[in-house]
């Protein structure tokens, strides 16, 4: 396979898994944050909000130390693997999913939820109604999360290691680390080409999701 195609597909796969994981974990968290009341709820909310802009290098450094063979999670063998990058990016974008969906569900919550209840819906039916209404915003949160994951460098570099062997089975080079390396090597043309591919992906995915949103929701 052509290396550029291989790298592009890997970027999509790694960050796609990260975004799906973050959504599956993050959306239930935001439902919990909206529909239940418990002590420290506001604290958790502001924690997620605060983590929205966590620098990827800092995150990468923590994960690198935690996942190194002598670190506490070294036994998982996740350092310098695709799965390692996916899980790292998942942690990075979890706050995006949680914060975005929490605030969008909150906005819809009161009116729809109470209306559904007065129309004799059960609690869980009313909750589903709210989620249904908030779906476009949740989708938007998913895209924002995916775009942040695929465009970040720090975690992909420190946890992934930019490994590439021709026809290798355990490569970890993704678009961002490849761009960084080609710039360092002075191969600006390839770096630019990869940069346009990355921009293209981000743009096309946003476009497709916008169309999906308009047609189906």
């Amino acid at each position, binding site marked *: 396979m052509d290396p550029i195609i291989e790298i592009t597909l890997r970027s999509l796969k790694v960050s796609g898994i990260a975004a799906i994981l973050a959504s599956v974990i993050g959306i239930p968290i935001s439902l919990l944050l909206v529909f239940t009341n418990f002590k420290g709820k506001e604290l958790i909310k502001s924690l997620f909000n605060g983590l929205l802009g966590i620098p990827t290098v800092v995150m990468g450094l923590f994960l690198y130390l935690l996942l190194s063979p*002598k670190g506490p999670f070294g036994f998982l063998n996740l350092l310098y693997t695709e799965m390692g990058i996916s899980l790292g990016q998942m942690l990075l974008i979890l706050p995006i999913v949680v914060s975005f969906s929490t605030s969008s569900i909150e906005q819809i919550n009161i009116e729809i939820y109470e209306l559904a209840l007065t129309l004799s819906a059960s609690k869980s039916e009313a909750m589903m109604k709210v989620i249904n209404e908030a779906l476009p915003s949740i989708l938007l949160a998913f895209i924002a999360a995916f775009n942040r994951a695929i465009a970040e460098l720090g975690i992909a570099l420190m946890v992934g290691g930019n490994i590439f062997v021709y026809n290798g089975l355990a490569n970890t080079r993704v678009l961002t680390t490849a761009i960084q390396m080609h710039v360092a090597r002075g191969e600006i043309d390839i770096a630019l080409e990869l940069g346009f591919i990355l921009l293209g992906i981000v743009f096309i995915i946003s476009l497709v999701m916008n169309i999906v949103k308009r047609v189906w929701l």
Partner: protein
Amino acid sequence: MKKLKVIVIVVIFGLIITTLYAFEQNKRKEVEILTISTTTSLYDTGFLDEVAKIFKEKGVELHFIAKGTGAALNDAKLGISDMVLVHARSKEEQFMKEGYGVNRKIFAYNFFIIVGPADDPAGIKGMNVVEAMKKIVEMGRKGKVIWVSRGDLSGTNIKEISLWKAAGFNYEEIKRENWFRETGSGMGNTLLYASNKKAYTLSDTGTYLKYEKEGKIQLKILVDKGEQLINIYSVIIVNPEKGDKTERDFELAMKIEKWLVSDEGQELLRNYGKDVYGKSLFYPAVEILENKIEPYYSWIVKYGFINGSECPEEYRYKAEDYGITFW
């Protein structure tokens, strides 16, 4: 009922993740993988990509992690890599003294160069390196020239620090003067910065030739004389007793080391980049040590040996089992 659904979803989800994880770990077991932390100047020339290709055909995947020499050694200390390719003797010695590394072999050398603007405002062209550094300080203090340093504790940066010392200056002190700039980044970026600012800098030959060839920089080689400029690359194996490494990792690493200093490896090194740049980026070191070719032999001894050997007795580990001898 609703709780049950949630539990089922969570379980299915967990299963998918574990399967993906197991699949990836399994894929890694199918091939032999060796992790090698390397200095960027070796990696960025593309030489190691060639090496990786050759070993891929032999069924071994070499995973090169490119970092500065300091970071590469740190990787090894954390138990990540099985061997390191580096070029800073003082750090290598410390690394072995702490018990992390064994069986050091010198496998390549080339020369650092001082590059600067073509009109050479400091007038250092053709000078000996120590004289040139003194002249740059003098002209810098008059505000006529700028010096750019990597400032990243890479092998190149460490060489620069020792050159300043040889010229009678303290790096920590002069780096605060206003004609002195630090980029804190790789050689390529530093060359681009120096070219834009019409400044002087210390560079490795490989990166300079590459950037020069592609017309990205307007810098000329001004100083390439002086034994102090020699740049010596060595390979160190991570000590299996200290690095949580299996016997198999060690065995594989020793095979790679043996290949690097074999005729095949040395020949690849000699010819790499010749067709593109018109001259070798690296010179093989083994023949120099074997035949004591002067003056390079005494320079390698002076700047690359530790206590009179490339690898003193106490840092050797089962090397004779693999047919490796030390000079």
